[in-house]
């Protein structure tokens, strides 16, 4: 994470002085974008850089659902399974993905191409069901649309 420190230094300028602790979440997000997950050496490096207790960083990593401590597939397909998406076919989509890829929820295909997860409400209920592919929302999804989309994800 050391090469990201110049970026972190710029962020500090807009935070109230002396509140480095607030940078834990944004720094972890940036580290994860960079490496794909948060490694032990990142935790150690961030502990030293921000001067916060290591346990605070470990707690944040285990509390929030978006952080990862291990690598996943190149394409992360996260299907919402909450009320409005379930009412518009999310359960069929989740079944379809598992059958199509031959893996279970939370698993990655052997070629490292896809990881599939279920998530709770993504705030996209009016365009349900929604599948998040890496950072992007794909709304009003169906099995056919998902198949077509996955064709292009190499």
């Amino acid at each position: 994470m050391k090469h990201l420190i110049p970026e972190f230094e710029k962020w500090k300028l807009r935070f109230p002085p002396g509140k480095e602790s607030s940078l834990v979440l944004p720094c972890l997000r940036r580290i994860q974008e960079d490496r794909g997950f948060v490694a032990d050496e990142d935790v150690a490096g961030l502990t030293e850089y921000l001067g916060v207790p290591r346990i605070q960083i470990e707690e944040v990593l285990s509390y929030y659902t978006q952080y990862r401590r291990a690598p996943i597939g190149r394409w992360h397909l996260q299907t919402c399974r909450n009320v409005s998406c379930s009412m518009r076919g999310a359960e069929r989509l989740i079944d379809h993905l598992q059958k199509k890829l031959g893996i279970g929820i939370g698993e990655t295909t052997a070629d490292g191409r896809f990881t599939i997860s279920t998530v709770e409400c993504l705030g996209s209920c009016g365009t349900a069901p929604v599948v998040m592919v890496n950072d992007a929302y794909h709304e009003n999804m169906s099995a056919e649309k998902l198949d077509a989309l996955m064709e292009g994800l190499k």
Partner: protein
Amino acid sequence: MPGRQLLMTFPVTATSHSLADYRARGGYQTLERVLKTLKPEDVTKEVSAAGLLGHGGAAFPTGRKWGVIKLDDGIPHHLCANADEGEPGTFKDRWILEHNPHLLVEAMAMTSYAIGARHNFVYIRGEFDLPWRRIQGAVDEAYEAGYLGSNILGTSHGCDIVVYRGAGSYVCGEASGLLTSIEGKKGYPRNRPPRLTVKGLYQRPTDVNNVETLANVGVVMTIGAEAFRKIGTAKSPGTQLVSISGHIAKPGVYEVEFGYPLKTFLYEDCGGMIGGKALKALIPGGISTKVLTAPEIEPLTYDHASFDKAGSSLGSGGMIAIAEGTCMVRLLQVMIRFYHHESCGQCTPCREGMGWMHRVVDRIVAGQGVPEDIDRLYAISEANDGTTICGMGDAAGYATIGILNKFRDEFEYYIANKRSRCNGVLEVGNA
């Protein structure tokens, strides 16, 4: 259109979110007038006079919340916009973040003036990508144009805004959990008192307002309290952005004037239920609000008093329409699974209670329920009520009791026959 509009007043185009378009709509003129001609307390007075209520779910009077913060206490204050939209069924703040982000920025610059706050935040849920790019883009543009930073528009007022991204936690939408998260920790809510306006972010007086509430502050300061009060009802002035989803023909975000007839909204503005099905139930404002049956919605108008009288609330404006044929047992299962997943684990009644309720409902759905399970769900819900630091445990209980009170027969049928009376169906109408 469901009544008069205050927020959805311009056509959405490829550039309508930009600073240039916002300025062409008159944007930032109000900020200049406020900073150059009004005192901070005048802003609070105007917002109080407008009768603006919070739009995040609790409907607390905005001006009264601000009024707690003492301008001359000599300590730094903070303002946080709550953009952690995550109550299932709610996707209205996204509309403001994506299509009119500068209105939020301008309103925050004015609110920070009213409460004397220099370092301020927009806390946005980590999954939001486009809304984040839009609000971050607007903040960057506003700095560039001199609407944020030090000495805004040549005045002595300074306002910094950090767009702070969450990382996946429903509880961080609760105001105190949100502040703990901005402090860089796991998002545990905090006990009150002290109120957040007394000891909030970094133990300093902090005002947390919903995105739509702040957008309405912008409207109030532009058109004035008197004009604002002419929209809506006497007790609920203004409008609400209602996000409607589920088995409805035309889902989406609608701006509804308070006092508008609910049935007209559902059947004319939203086109009724998909496939012309009958309405079975309506979740009025996020799944934590009590469900209403089709006969119960008949006389309702869309305002706080009308929904309170019906034993529910407007909540966050996240409506979910449920068609006849939907299995309410499976629906409750999806809801309780969510609450169990999102319980932060800090308070024992919620941490244990959510898991227990989840196991009970799973057991019923698997055909292994026993008749006492219904009373058990009531008992856990009631035991939770008021015993936890934040309202999540309470809300899960209200949602459960709401469904059990009105659809108890479906649960009894499921337990007695080991199968759903509605074949376990959640997806209705588009088959």
